[in-house]
């Protein structure tokens, strides 16, 4: 199984001289199974170049797109994903139901292609599109891989995904902030709430247990996170803690803040190497074009 990063930025695409090395496209990760099938995590702006590459093969494109959640930075590349426009291509979308708007994945994705936002409507797309609204804890067999999902913690319903293929595995957190206790330490419900949080974290780490590659949202530094509580993103430290608890064999930090410059990411990477414990798995900061072969 091979993994390639096509978009590593969070919130909004951030092109410019300060982001040229790590890249400015928003989240999109390509997983290629042992048999050569394509599973894509999220459809941020990085999915546009991925679509072009898939089309270059000169044969019908068949792929699965697992949407962690439908915030713009995770779906905005979709109208520019060329395979959707070509007859004979087949795309299976996976994602969550929206409990607030009471809409399924297809309705939400179609909405961003309405006439006032985009010239081509979803119903005009020529590829064969199939939408699958997943329950939490689903197990989907896709070609030679198995996709499972777990609910994360973000201001909109978000799934983390695990893909297993021939004994190798990758977990992608989507956007995730470790849930915090809304009660003060001396409140009656503090203990109860803490127990519920522990259960949730255990469930996530169980889903990701023993993965070969753990891809995690690390939008903020510890200092930034203090003022961004409730915004739904993790830090390098919180991502590392989850990866340790899941006994992951390698960690990649992604979803970089749009203000994060290449130099800052270099410095953070250097610091992470210095602070790395012996028992820790190798860790890396995601950049556009990073390829990892899990063998």
């Amino acid at each position, binding site marked *: 199984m091979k993994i390639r990063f096509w978009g590593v930025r969070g919130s909004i695409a951030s092109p410019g001289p300060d982001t040229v090395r790590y890249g400015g496209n928003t989240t999109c990760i390509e997983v290629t199974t042992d048999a050569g099938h394509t599973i894509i995590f999220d459809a941020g702006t990085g999915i546009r170049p991925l679509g072009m590459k898939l089309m270059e093969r000169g044969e019908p494109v068949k792929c699965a797109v697992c949407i962690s959640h439908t915030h713009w930075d995770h779906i905005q590349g979709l109208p520019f994903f060329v395979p959707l426009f070509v007859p004979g291509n087949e795309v299976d979308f996976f994602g969550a139901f929206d409990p*607030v708007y009471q809409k399924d994945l297809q309705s939400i994705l179609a909405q961003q292609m309405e006439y006032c936002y985009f010239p081509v409507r979803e119903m005009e797309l020529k590829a064969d599109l199939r939408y699958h609204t997943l329950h939490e804890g689903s197990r989907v067999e896709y070609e030679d891989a198995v996709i499972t999902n777990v609910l994360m913690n973000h201001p909109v319903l978000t799934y983390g995904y695990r893909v297993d293929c021939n004994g190798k595995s990758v977990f992608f957190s989507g956007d995730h902030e470790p849930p915090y206790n809304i009660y003060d330490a001396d409140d009656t419900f503090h203990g109860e709430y803490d127990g519920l949080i522990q259960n949730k974290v255990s469930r996530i780490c169980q889903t990701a247990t023993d993965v070969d590659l753990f891809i995690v949202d690390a939008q903020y530094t510890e200092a930034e996170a203090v003022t961004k509580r409730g915004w739904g993103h993790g830090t390098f430290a919180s991502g590392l803690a989850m990866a340790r608890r899941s006994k992951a064999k390698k960690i990649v930090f992604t979803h970089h803040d749009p203000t994060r410059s290449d130099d800052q990411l270099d410095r953070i990477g250097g610091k992470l190497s210095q602070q790395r414990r012996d028992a820790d798995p190798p860790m890396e900061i995601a950049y556009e074009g990073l390829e990892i072969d899990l063998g």
Partner: protein
Amino acid sequence: MTTVSSELLELCERMPAFPASVQQVISLTSDINSSPKDLVRVIDHDPVLTMKILKVANSAYFGLTRQIVSINHAVVYLGLNTVKHVALAIAAIGSLPKENKAGFDMDDFLLHSLTTAVITRALARHMRIPEVEAANFFVAGLLHDIGQVVFAQFKPNEFNQALAAARKTGTPLHEQEHAILGNDHSELGALLCETWSFPESLVSAIRMHHVPSPAKDQDAIRKCLFVANLLAGRVNAPVNSPAAVEEDDLPPWVFRTFGNDFQTIIDGLSGLQTDLQQATSLLQVGQGV
């Protein structure tokens, strides 16, 4: 009635919450500095908000592996922001009217529901039920009479007759509901909760809250709710359905488990008065609405 008609279900989906909670949901969600725990407190003290959020959390769209009983659990499971926006969507429907054609006193209903919720949880603590589970007992107390609000909203004329007959004859309201509406609020509440995949223990406690269980019954929620419903009537005498139950009518396990008589049981529940004051303080907030 063994199922809820699709028409009634649809009406319940669009049922608004109580005025004070609606006002507070709107005010807390528009204040960026408000504390999430305050919002949770408003939701879990309003039977309609609680019912609707549990409906979302337990819906087939999410995990079918676990069932969610408390609002805290729903918040951790679905995320704070999702629960906040579901609450806001419910608040946008409007508020339950203070006056209704049924002549049903909504403030009295809310007071009785909250009193029962607090006492059910206090009995659970008395039985040394772990705190995480005690939250489920609170919800059972809060929702046990939800069928009454549904009747008041959607069958006001018949419910008005049932209320009047119960007052006039001094008989329990649920008996009059059966005679006039063909069903009673405990069954209706249970059917709604069942339809929305609430946990079986909650459904059965609501369904059987007028029926004392056998001594050997292990269902602690049902046991506590049954007793709490009666004790709540002693603590705050209900206006809507004043029929009193005599202690002599109760099976002996009630007194073996909880105390020799109602007053002894009430006095033995530690922190009850403080909890009652806290729970019902939100009612005062709504008085000016």
